[in-house]
């Protein structure tokens, strides 16, 4: 009964398996490529940076599993790409800046070209901007400008994927601490 072409909701087990695979691969990459020198700052910052990287890796892995079907996954991937692009711009290395920008800009446009059903009609959308809905819009990535129905849809998918992600991470933590 959904008006737009939404694919059927993914099986959570499949989600978990795919997420676990990508997440472990990202963790491996993180562990291997520790480019920044180890003793540049105190332990706290290092820990914070590392944990932030892990968190970003987790969200990215989940978003790439879902792919471009969902607005929130597109928004997450775009944010991560933007962040890396900004970092490379801010860093002192000026080489190949333009080329990087061009590449990511293309991706950005491509990601944004997806047809989204827009319904900005205030008459049709009475629950658009009530207080709690605003909070929800801030929490769910990429849901700032959606209409209420799409927001609910995205929230449902987001909660499902997030819950799967948390479960996988919990089991991984348990695995790591026992060994």
């Amino acid at each position, binding site marked *: 009964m959904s008006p737009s072409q939404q694919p059927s909701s993914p099986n959570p087990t499949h989600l978990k398996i795919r997420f676990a695979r990508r997440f472990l691969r990202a963790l491996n990459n993180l562990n291997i490529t520790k480019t920044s020198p180890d003793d540049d700052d105190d332990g706290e910052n290092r*820990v914070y940076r590392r944990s932030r990287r892990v968190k970003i890796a987790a969200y990215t892995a989940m978003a790439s599993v879902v792919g471009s079907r969902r607005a929130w996954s597109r928004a997450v991937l775009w944010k991560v790409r933007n962040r890396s692009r900004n970092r490379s711009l801010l860093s002192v290395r000026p080489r190949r800046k333009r080329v990087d920008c061009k590449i990511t800009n293309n991706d950005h446009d491509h990601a944004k070209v997806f047809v989204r059903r827009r319904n900005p009609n205030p008459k*049709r959308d009475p629950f658009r901007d009530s207080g709690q809905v605003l909070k929800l819009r801030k929490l769910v990535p990429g849901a700032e400008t959606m209409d209420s129905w799409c927001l609910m849809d995205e929230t449902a998918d987001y909660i499902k994927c997030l819950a799967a992600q948390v479960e996988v991470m919990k089991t991984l933590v348990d695995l790591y601490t026992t060994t």
Partner: protein
Amino acid sequence: MSLQDDTNSFDPTVTHDDFLDQMLSGLQTTVSWPDISAGNGGQNKSPLPWDVVDHFDDQSAFLSSKLRQHQISAAAGGRTPPSAVKSLQLPRGLASAAESALFGNDNIDDSSFKSPIGDNNSIQNLFHGFTGSLTSNQTQQFRNLPAQNLGSPAVMNQVQASSVAAGGGGGGAPSQPRQRVRARRGQATDPHSIAERLRRERIAERMKALQELVPNANKTDKASMLDEIIDYVKFLQLQVKVLSMSRLGGAAAGAIAPIVAEGGGVGRSSNGTASSSNNDAAMTVTENQVVKLMEEDMGSAMQYLQGKGLCLMPISLATAISTATCHPSASRSNLPSLAGGGPSSPNMSVLTVQSANGVSSVKDSP
């Protein structure tokens, strides 16, 4: 002087049905209708047949649909003619004019209508025709009625009102090509409100789907449901954050415990490399604090511990748990006299804090 009294003395059903047939057939032909003209409500006396005919064609559709529906309702429901005619006469001026015109059509030549003669003649013809089929009492009634104001806006309203009323009256009748969509009881016919209603239903269906996803969602209220959803999303995001903090292997994990334990804002270990001495120092600070609080008031001590995500438990239970479980995911006890008792592996403390954080965050949600 209601017409309805007169209709009771009508002819029997058979002739009335014939009469309706004639009316319907008569509607199709051009009839001069001297009194119906747009905006000429006051002027009953200067008709022009061709002017009137234009309006009449517009209204003939109304009338034909209305009358057809009456005919069907009369045939299907077995209605008596008085009631049928009564509902016809709800817009009194219009119906009477229709009847008068149609009666006239039956019995008088069209040619006489088409000639642009004075209105009085045509009206007289109408009423003569009418007398031909009805008793004379009624002619006087009908003669008086066309003198009423029959502006077309009023006609339109009447037709619409009558069609709605007729629709209410002939409930079982099949839907004819009407001018308005008949709505259900208590709901609007406006396309905007229909669209809004559909939209609200879709959103409610989505909310129900969300209810199944979010645990502890037995709330029927939409606002509280939204609150639950928001809290659950926040909780999941916090869990990801905490899990990512503990998701580290090796030496860096040792530094986590004091950091996470001091998340409550007690005080940060300013310069410290990740070493176990730092760990113990933070712990002893906490322990001293707890001891001080416990001397004053047990409740505040418990709250302080809860704020840090720790809990208090007897030593015997702690040792039992630590020996019983194979992997160190048991909750650690923060006892004042912790000299040799508690396990001090950093992984264990991290998990303790993490699980306690998870617990406390669930509890703190409103």
